[in-house]
């Protein structure tokens, strides 16, 4: 917003909920409350689900805290009180996803992983392996998958064709996550080798997709962060997380080369600049205050 661009949030918490609380429950973190979308397949299935074109059989996971959505298991600490509440929230979420897809000017997607877990029943892809954040892993129903270049290109192409149908003027910006894998599910393969494969596949796929679609562009944040020139200085001590200065540098380059805006030296990301709360709640509080004052003024009388 500092640069005159809005991060489009189509699904925010109700105004009656304070910003501090909303943030804890992942409102405003994502454009809609879908959580991390690691793979192109996950993105494509989300769009299909939002438009009622795909309904996975695995619907809800019962957890000690409540019911979890298998397709965004970490989105709501404490879970949902029932499958019915989960479904109601999911419908609101899908409406927000539709709004997001139809009304955004620029759609940004960061390709994160090629490895995923999916349902053997209908191919539904989970963001996390069932049994980790919730659910139960069942080898009869769940399987590991490591997507190929062709699969990633096919999934994102299907998504892009669909997006252009509902939002013909949208521009698509693709990036590849510079964050290496923390672990791999490939047997007998080092996480280092798996990371190299995954990033190579995603990088090739984005190149092919940029060549295929006139409205899709690749922005090399992956190279900016991971390239030899950076000498690893954009990574935190854990060698995975990207330092704020790395993020700021990427954003500065993006603003300069894609938006024609010079933002100067890297600086910390801005804090939320929308401090306006719920005007209605504020008015209600004011009214209550008046009544409470009147109650005190009336104290000399009967109070009855």
């Amino acid at each position, binding site marked *: 917003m500092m640069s005159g661009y809005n991060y489009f949030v189509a699904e925010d918490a*109700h105004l009656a*909920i*304070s910003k501090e609380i909303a943030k804890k429950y992942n409102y405003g973190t994502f454009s809609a409350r879908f959580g991390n979308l690691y793979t192109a397949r996950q993105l494509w299935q989300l769009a299909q689900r939002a438009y009622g074109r795909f309904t996975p059989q695995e619907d809800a996971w019962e957890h000690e805290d409540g019911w979890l959505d298998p397709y965004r298991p970490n989105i*709501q600490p404490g879970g949902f009180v029932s499958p019915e509440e989960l479904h109601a929230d999911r419908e609101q979420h899908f409406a927000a996803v539709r709004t997001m897809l139809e009304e955004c000017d620029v759609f940004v997607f960061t390709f994160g992983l090629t490895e995923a877990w999916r349902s053997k029943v209908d191919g539904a892809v989970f963001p996390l392996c069932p049994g980790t954040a919730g659910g139960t892993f069942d080898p009869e129903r769940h399987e590991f998958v490591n997507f190929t270049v062709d699969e990633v290109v096919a999934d994102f192409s299907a998504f892009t064709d669909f997006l252009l149908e509902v939002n013909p003027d949208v521009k698509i910006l693709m990036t590849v996550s510079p964050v290496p894998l923390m672990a791999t599910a490939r047997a007998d393969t080092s996480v280092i080798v798996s990371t190299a494969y995954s990033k190579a596949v995603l990088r090739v796929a984005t190149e092919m997709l940029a060549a295929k679609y006139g409205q899709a562009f690749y922005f090399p944040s992956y190279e900016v962060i991971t390239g030899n020139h950076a000498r690893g200085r954009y990574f935190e001590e854990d060698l995975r997380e990207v330092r704020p200065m790395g993020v700021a540098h990427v954003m500065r380059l993006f603003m300069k080369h894609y938006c024609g805006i010079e933002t100067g030296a890297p600086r910390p990301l801005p804090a939320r600049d929308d401090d306006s709360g719920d005007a209605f709640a504020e008015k209600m*509080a004011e009214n209550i205050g008046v009544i409470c004052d009147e*109650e005190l003024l009336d*104290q000399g009388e*009967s*109070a009855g």
Partner: protein
Amino acid sequence: MTKPKLLCFGHSHLVCIDVAVKWREQSLEGFRDAFDIRFEQLRREPYHPNFVDVGGKRELTTECENAMASAIADFKPDAILAVFSGQEYQIFSILNHPIKFDFVTPNNPAYVPKNSEIIPFVLVKAQLKYLIERSVLIFIDKIKGITNVPVFMVAPPPPIESEEHILTYPGPFAEDAKEFGVSPAPFRRKVWKVYCDILKEEGARHGANVLMPPKTVMDNGYMAQDCWRKDPVHGNVKYGNAIIHMVLNRAFGHAGVNKHD
């Protein structure tokens, strides 16, 4: 014989209790000799304003803090009655929000209200808890930091079921009530219940004994009609009388007079 001393801190819901105690002192033989009860109204100076924002954190003003400490030191109570705030649930629920909302509860998990935005229950709970933490619990923590005497915290009055009553005595809500409408009574009762559940849990965690309004002032989860005051949220002297009766019994084992037991 030393009279047991009850020190009462609170906001507007304390008023009906204060009036009830005065009525008891004047009308009930032996009551004045049975207890020493003092009221400290936090909506008045030197307590008011209660809070100040310190680097984004809400704290009691020095004046409020000092006044509370002085009141406790001077009076040396045997027990404290805390009737703090309690309006948070009303702010959240008394009128229809311009963007109508509702929520599913664990008591009726399969029922999804229609024609409203559904706020997840955990979020409703988190919001009400947040409001309680920013008001009631700050006072409780302050008191518990000063004295070890038992603190009895009374939950706020339940909502008034009658929309007609609220619209007849809307006070400053008149204009907004006309525009947005009074929210459905079951919704207001539901919010009150969640609020009280959090209050019980958090109050206990912070060392207070949380008391719910007695059955005598309740009717099907709402405030009994004979306890309504001529405004949309407060209880009357009958309500206050029932509360002080309950608190005295809980704090000292009797309420001073038999005929109101």
